[in-house]
């Protein structure tokens, strides 16, 4: 099958000036999802969540290419990003052939738990991963919140990972973009404590950034128990 990249040309409109425009990290994410597509389709996701949807390009890509029904919830802190995602879905009609989709403005998944605990088959997360000061993260405007990751670029990701491991269905997959400076091995260890394993799907050097796309899934029950015992 052939994968097409969703059209997001409306992002140039002034009303979307605070929305993160698809860049190298977004395209790496799309390429990684395409590479891992057989794993995603084998999962037969019925519920999908994209946290920090920005332009909506990632969700629209997934929705356009899934061949079975799936309900997608796209969430962002920035109301303009949520609106941009609505336009992205509307202007890429393939998104609605099999999938239904809704939008939400919110602070990460704080209003999804525990209602959606263990419910989400597929979680997509291209987080603000850039290393900044915590002050820059806290005091930045909506457009800087799309990329500013605070201390080691991990402040937002770590907060969401705690929620994501609760949201993830037993057979669920969580795909995430990370930066080399985010310390992948430390993330692997942290998620291991939640009973999740991490696979590296794709890596790429884009200008000054060394980016990775990783996939988390639950380890088997036996390993999970073993891990708890070790801890």
């Amino acid at each position, binding site marked *: 099958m052939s994968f097409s990249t969703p059209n997001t040309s*409306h992002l140039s*409109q002034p009303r979307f000036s605070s929305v993160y425009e698809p860049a190298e990290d977004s395209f790496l994410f799309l390429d990684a999802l395409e590479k891992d597509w057989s794993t995603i389709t084998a999962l*037969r996701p*019925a*519920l999908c969540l994209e946290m920090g949807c920005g332009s909506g390009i990632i969700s629209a890509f997934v929705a356009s290419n899934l061949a*079975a*029904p*799936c*309900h997608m*919830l796209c969430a962002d*802190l920035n*109301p303009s990003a*949520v*609106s941009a995602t*609505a*336009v992205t879905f*509307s*202007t890429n009609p393939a998104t609605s052939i099999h999938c*239904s989709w*809704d*939008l*939400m*403005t*919110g*602070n990460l998944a*704080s*209003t*999804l*738990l*525990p*209602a*959606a605990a*263990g*419910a989400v088959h597929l979680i997509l997360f291209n987080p603000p991963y850039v290393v900044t000061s915590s002050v820059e993260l806290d005091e930045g405007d909506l457009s800087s919140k799309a990329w500013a990751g605070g201390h080691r670029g991990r402040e937002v990701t770590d907060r969401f990972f705690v929620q994501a491991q609760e949201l993830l*269905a037993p057979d669920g997959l969580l795909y995430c973009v990370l930066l080399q400076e985010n310390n992948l091995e430390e993330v692997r260890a942290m998620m291991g404590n939640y009973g999740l394993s991490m696979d590296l799907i794709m890596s790429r050097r884009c200008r000054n950034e060394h980016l990775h796309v990783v996939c988390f899934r639950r380890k088997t029950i036996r390993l999970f128990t073993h891990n708890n015992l070790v801890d």
Partner: protein
Amino acid sequence: MLVLFRRFPTLHLLFLQTTSACPYTSRTMKLLTHNMLTSKAIKGVQEGYPLRVKAETVEIRESEFNKDFLVRLLPKIHYDALYAAAKDAGHLDELPGTLPEDAASSEEFLKKLHHALLEVEVITGELICPESGRSFPVQNGIPNMLLKPEEIG
């Protein structure tokens, strides 16, 4: 439709412009999404679930029924919350008060479930925390679930 496009190759531009000029008119929130939302994060709130639905505008939009999809969704659904939301929205439309024992195998029930989850759509209204009364506005089908830092427990 295709014939029209062939005759007027730029016709799609009209559609595009319409979409980008008023992208919100067609946005709705499905009760499936409502089923995933809670206000438990609010300081002092114990359950915060289900959120009451105060719907000003509701639309019924038919969509294709897919049994496998519904069977896969079924274990993820909080049925009582769905029932309450459908009732609040004024569209119980024969949804049974309790989950039938043969839910996953009854196509008749799954079709009603499909209708409630995916076809009853809130365009404008509010979602209300059952304990604190905090209202989350839904506009153009988008629930605004943002909480201020001081509200979070």
